[in-house]
């Protein structure tokens, strides 16, 4: 890619670390799908032909986790990149609240497509009563933000199929705009607590 003004390239003025320079390539033996050794690729941005680039992207896809592949699948079906970026950057990830260690994260699930987000919520949150019914035990839909991926996946599921919504799960009413300052203060307090907890951990 040529520069348009002949200025120095921003990417050459700062070190970007290894993220874009040495993406590990998974080598497969004879196309049989057996995992071979990892090796480093040269930077994909050194004037590669578009065909080489496509090959490179295919190799990058091979390195993605199951969860990432699910996200990519959603992108391919919906032609929207929003889902990709809901994964967000590592920094963003670090800044998020993680659920109690006893509750597994949606992104770490090994159940694939067999368990829907709604099923997952019933399995890991609230409690199952003697008659087999599910009780949220004080949980609201907003509380699911503790696991952002689950929150988004559930929202997507309900959007696509409103009948899949968990009727027992209360949805908090939006606070009136007059309470904006109070809401902001509440958020700030939560943020401060979260950061304090993270520091102490």
């Amino acid at each position: 890619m040529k520069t348009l003004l002949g200025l120095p390239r921003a990417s050459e003025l700062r070190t970007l670390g290894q993220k874009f320079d040495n993406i590990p390539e998974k080598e497969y033996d004879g196309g049989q799908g057996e995992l071979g050794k990892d090796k480093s690729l040269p930077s994909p941005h050194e004037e590669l032909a578009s065909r080489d680039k496509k090959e490179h992207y295919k190799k990058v896809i091979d390195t993605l986790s199951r969860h990432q592949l699910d996200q990519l699948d959603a992108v391919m079906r919906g032609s929207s990149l929003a889902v990709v970026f809901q994964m967000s950057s590592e920094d963003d990830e670090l800044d998020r609240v993680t659920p109690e260690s006893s509750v597994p994260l949606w992104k770490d699930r090994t159940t694939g497509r067999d368990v829907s987000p709604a099923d997952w919520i019933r399995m890991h949150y609230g409690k199952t009563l003697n008659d087999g019914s599910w009780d949220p035990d004080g949980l609201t839909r907003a509380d699911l933000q503790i696991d952002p991926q689950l929150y988004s996946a559930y929202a997507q599921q309900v959007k696509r199929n409103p009948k899949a919504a968990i009727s027992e799960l209360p949805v908090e009413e939006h606070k009136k705009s007059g309470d904006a300052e109070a809401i902001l203060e509440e958020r700030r307090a939560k943020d401060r607590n979260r950061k304090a907890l993270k520091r102490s951990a």
Partner: protein
Amino acid sequence: MDERSPKRVAGVFLERSRGYLLIADARPIEHDAWQLVLLAEEPADWDALEPSSVAFELDRLGAVLGAFRDELSSVAIASYGPFVSLKPGRGYGVVRADTADIPLRGLDLCQVFSGHLGLHTLEQRAKRLQIQSDACACAVGEAYLRKTGKDEVLAYVFATEGVGIGLAKGREVFPSALHPEIGLLPAVAHLGDPIARTKEESILAISRKAKLDFQSISQLARNDAIWKRYEAMKGANDSSLQFASSSKEEMFWDIRACYLAEVCVACTVVSPPHKIIIGADIDPKNDVHLRAWDYFKHFIEGRLNARDPAFQYTELKKGFIDQPFCLPGKDEPPPPAVTGAIGLCYLAAAK
């Protein structure tokens, strides 16, 4: 006394198949204005039909931006719309998921870049990140390059992979509830346009679907319309954009100019600007602004000849519709992405 201090800013201009990042130093000058010193650039291009390639390149641009995060005071980002909202709050900077084109459809532009910039709270984002429409960014960039006066209104018609218009008053985006989407305007078909529906076809379409079914300016004036029209008129799909017959070639370039003139007329009758700039990335003859002016003039004169109400003001003269301002030391006007990125740097500095 001017208490503003110099700052480093960045602009990221996103189109359907490419992106462009510009980093600049902004120095305060008189009348609350800023002077930009362009420092570095980073182009990116992608296959719009391949989401992984778009995501990869956007992430790379974000990483490049992130490498400067400790020095950057503010960043502005622009892309095509329509956006859900361009006012801080819910939906700010989100490209509509229902009606926008791929590949940025549904994308939350703040979210894409805020992680790289270390902006994790709404407050941080509000202070250091802003989103604009592509054409509005170009309008501000052009106003900066031309040093337009504080009260002058400049319109920038953006004709690339889509068609848009942006308005700047002085060096600020002309305020509105959302942003202009002139590409959605129903087009009056040029009689010689092979890709425009004929009147009969339009009537048929209306009666069949029982709803208005006009072709829009965007459908008839964006880049892919140029290629479709070329194929229809020449009967070949080479990339030369040249015809054996010069009259046919003239007609070919006139057709797009006619649609862009319709945009200029619409803009002028709603909010008369002091100047209109047409920025087109496919303009081999470098004369789209002159052709559009001819059609524009024809419209005004037609109204006068028919003794219909018409208007006239001082700026409505040759040069009212112009091409983008050339950067110092360059002979050709910059592509819209450069003008837009300059505008974004200016908006970031002024934030």
